[in-house]
């Protein structure tokens, strides 16, 4: 009551609508947009919502994919918008838009209980902060040679990946537990609609612990160094930092008014030294310093700028620049010659989602945002570990048929992919129907039988779940039917399954449904995938001989 009265009596429109409040509003808006995008990325909700747009506005993704593919895929050109905004206002992206930045700022604000003096000290520039530029240079050089690794640290990719594989499963698990608790307490409320991924079993992601550990560490680091990730590691921030030296608007300090009280450092997000020479590449344009200046010495403006009290360029000496460049150039052959993902030797588990381009091209496009994994309705898409694609393909999407299968008429992953690593396909294209009849269906791999583990083949026990669920017509799994007398003297009919590789599309439902759960008696391997001639298996498909 009192608070409401206080609000009305002390309401000051100007104070309320001041720039720092508008900034918070913007952060809330974009963070919500991000959460809503994640929430909408689901087969029953997707519709035409642009759920990957935040990724597609990412200028680092745009520039890095241009370097690696020399083309601009679908909506990636929108990255220019952020570049334009940066040229106008500096790194506003970092403190106004970036959901990862907002998360860091929020955590830092919530837990930073230090005294004013401690805070001022923690927000001074530290020469460690150059490191993000080195990372950027290494990544961009790698990208220009064809190895796209920006996704490892790009904040938007990192955020999407974390939500896809860690946060949404955890939230859904919580709702499941709450729902089961309510049901057993006699309150059968249906909480399904609240879930990120309703209507399916709770999902699991192989190796997601490491994704979770990464974000826990990076968020936790805020307690030691505020906005550690943004200041030290963020390659997108570095890119925008390089651009923002040309920005029209910037923080300007009026030396005549300034009393060198250093209060402006209390809440400086970027450690941009507003009390001295403002570091343009570091400033997030959070505007906190303006609020904190008792002398009104600070302003965000484009006129009457003091050109002396400014450090425009990033803190990169030519020595560091050279070192980073050499690292980038050397990293490429190190990654490629590691030899875990070439056409000569590749993992049989490296099965890419339908619509994926050839592996070299795929690695030049995939930004590991795992939005495809977020969209996958069956949980078959998993972030790769070192095992499937080697060091280069960590956290790229692969199919794990132990968990589920690739749904026949689903192209969700291809629709949400921002970079075209999984190019947008239609169901007709996936199934090789309509205009795509000539190309045939998209094959993800080929299924094989392990007859030593197959129940009818090895143990005289009837089964053939694999044949039952095989979705092609005619079925790619056929059976040789025979009677046998088992050791107990029962005559049983055994439908012994075998593959017709010409018909197999590698969807993996046979493997997913095989009851030999640890090492399946039928399993799909990557060979025979239609995206690559190098990894093809059959020279040509056999046809029915007319009698």
């Amino acid at each position, binding site marked *: 009551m009192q608070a409401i009265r206080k609000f009305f009596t002390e309401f000051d429109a100007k104070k309320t609508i001041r720039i720092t409040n508008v900034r918070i509003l913007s952060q809330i808006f974009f963070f919500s947009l991000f959460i809503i995008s994640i929430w909408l990325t689901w087969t029953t909700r997707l519709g035409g919502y642009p759920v990957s747009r935040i990724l597609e506005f990412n200028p680092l993704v745009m520039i890095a994919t241009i370097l690696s593919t020399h083309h601009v895929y679908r909506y990636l050109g929108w990255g220019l918008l952020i570049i334009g905004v940066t040229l106008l206002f500096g790194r506003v992206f970092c403190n106004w838009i970036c959901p990862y930045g907002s998360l860091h700022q929020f955590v830092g604000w919530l837990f930073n209980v230090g005294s004013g003096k401690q805070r001022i000290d923690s927000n001074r520039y530290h020469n460690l902060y150059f490191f993000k530029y080195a990372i950027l240079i290494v990544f961009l050089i790698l990208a220009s040679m064809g190895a796209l690794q920006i996704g490892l640290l790009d904040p938007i990719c990192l955020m999407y990946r974390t939500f896809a594989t860690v946060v949404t499963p955890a939230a859904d698990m919580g709702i*499941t537990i709450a729902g089961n608790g309510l049901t057993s307490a006699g309150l059968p409320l249906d909480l399904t609609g609240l879930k990120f991924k309703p209507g399916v079993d709770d999902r699991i992601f192989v190796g997601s612990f490491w994704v979770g550990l990464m974000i826990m560490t990076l968020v936790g680091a805020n307690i030691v160094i505020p906005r550690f990730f943004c200041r030290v590691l963020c390659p997108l921030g570095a890119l925008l930092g390089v651009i923002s030296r040309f920005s029209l608007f910037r923080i300007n300090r009026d030396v005549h008014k300034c009393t060198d009280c250093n209060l402006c450092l209390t809440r400086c997000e970027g450690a941009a030294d507003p009390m001295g020479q403002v570091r343009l590449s570091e400033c997030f344009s959070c505007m906190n310093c303006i609020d904190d200046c008792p002398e009104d010495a600070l302003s965000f403006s484009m006129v009457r700028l003091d050109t002396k009290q400014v450090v425009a360029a990033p803190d990169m000496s030519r020595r560091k620049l050279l070192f980073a460049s050499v690292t980038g150039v050397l990293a490429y052959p190190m990654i490629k010659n590691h030899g875990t993902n070439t056409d000569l030797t590749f993992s049989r588990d490296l099965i890419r989602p339908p619509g994926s381009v050839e592996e070299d091209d795929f690695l030049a496009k995939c930004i590991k945002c795992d939005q495809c994994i977020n969209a996958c309705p069956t949980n078959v898409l998993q972030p790769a570990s070192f095992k499937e694609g080697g060091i280069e393909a960590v956290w790229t999407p692969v199919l794990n048929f132990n968990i589920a299968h690739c749904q026949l008429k689903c192209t969700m992953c291809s629709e949400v992919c921002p970079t075209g690593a999984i190019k947008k396909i239609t169901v007709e294209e996936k199934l090789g129907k309509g205009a795509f009849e000539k190309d045939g269906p998209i094959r993800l791999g080929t299924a094989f039988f392990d007859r030593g583990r197959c129940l009818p083949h090895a143990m005289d026990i009837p089964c053939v779940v694999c044949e039952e669920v095989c979705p092609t017509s005619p079925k790619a799994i056929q059976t040789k039917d025979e009677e046998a007398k088992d050791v107990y003297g029962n005559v049983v009919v055994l439908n012994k399954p075998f593959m017709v590789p010409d018909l197999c599309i590698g969807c993996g439902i046979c493997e997913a449904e095989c009851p030999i759960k640890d090492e399946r008696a039928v399993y799909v391997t990557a060979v025979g995938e239609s995206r690559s001639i190098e990894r093809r298996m059959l020279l040509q498909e056999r046809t029915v001989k007319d009698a």
Partner: protein
Amino acid sequence: MSKKEKPIQHPEYVKAPMERRQFFGKIAAAAGIASVAGYASFAPGNWPGSLKDETGLLSKPRHKPFQIPDFRVQKPTGVFADVGVARGSRQADGTYSSEQLARMLTASIDQVGGIKHYIKNGDIVLIKPNVAFDRSPNLGATSNPEILETLIRMVLEAGAQEVRVADNPIESPPDCFKKSKIEYATLKGGGRVYLPDSNSFKMLHTPGARLIENWWFFHRPFLNVDKVIGFSPVKDHNLCHASMGMKNWYGLLGGTRNQFHQDIHNIVSDLSIMIRPTLTIVDGTNVLMINGPTGGDPSNVKKGDVIMAGTDPVALDSWAFEHVLERDKNDMPTYLTLAQEKHASSPLKGEIRYEMNYEGRVKEVQLG
């Protein structure tokens, strides 16, 4: 004391000896904690309040099984048919008019007593279609959405307060419900869709079942349900020859159900005693003749133009096997025989017959 005391520099270092009361308090607290903890951990397991677990079995997770009631309804007096069959023709373009479907459905149910006899005012009705795969409706792999919509309308008109539609498909549930148009048909008809997720399964106890005496069951849609109607297509099935009204209930099982194919006939016949539906409706309009149960090509489908409804799923399946799927009587799936036997020995058998022999129990009507 003449000796001059030194001023105390640090007041926090002043000695404060423990008082007697404080000492005894601490002793008492320690003794109390020790005795309660000691009792809980060492007293025999059957003493009240003891946590003792001598064998290690007490802490084993247990799932308290529940049972579902018998949903069957006695036929009205004077009605003798256990299976009603309605045949009707299509329009010139190969589709049915919605009136024709409604007429066929009504006619088939009327032969066994009419929907008003089975659905009472205020009932909560669960309809279980077959939505196992994400095929288009005309491919015969899933239940016909148009008939489902008609059925939901009919059940609501008969006075039901709520109609639920539920299945646990083999493929991704949201996609299967969407692509098979079952979700659309349900919402259009006025029903509610229940998708299976981790919240939805509970241990079901089925007395007399061979393989699923206790098994995970899709229980959420069954909360407070009064009547259950099975609604399935007729499909070819390599392993058990045919998937019709009884095999449809497979879609309510959870857990590692892919093991059941090792004894498919026993599991399907177990299903017939696991759930005793009010009505079983089998749709023979698009019959999947080969490549079942997934299908996928229109050439696999035969236009059957028949809808069946019955109180005896065994007779219904036998009839459909011979007359809709057009198979030889001698190849009749073993699960039908087993279902008949299991029902006969079940304590819940009641007066409604579950018999393969459908002679004289099927009533057919031919509509225009």
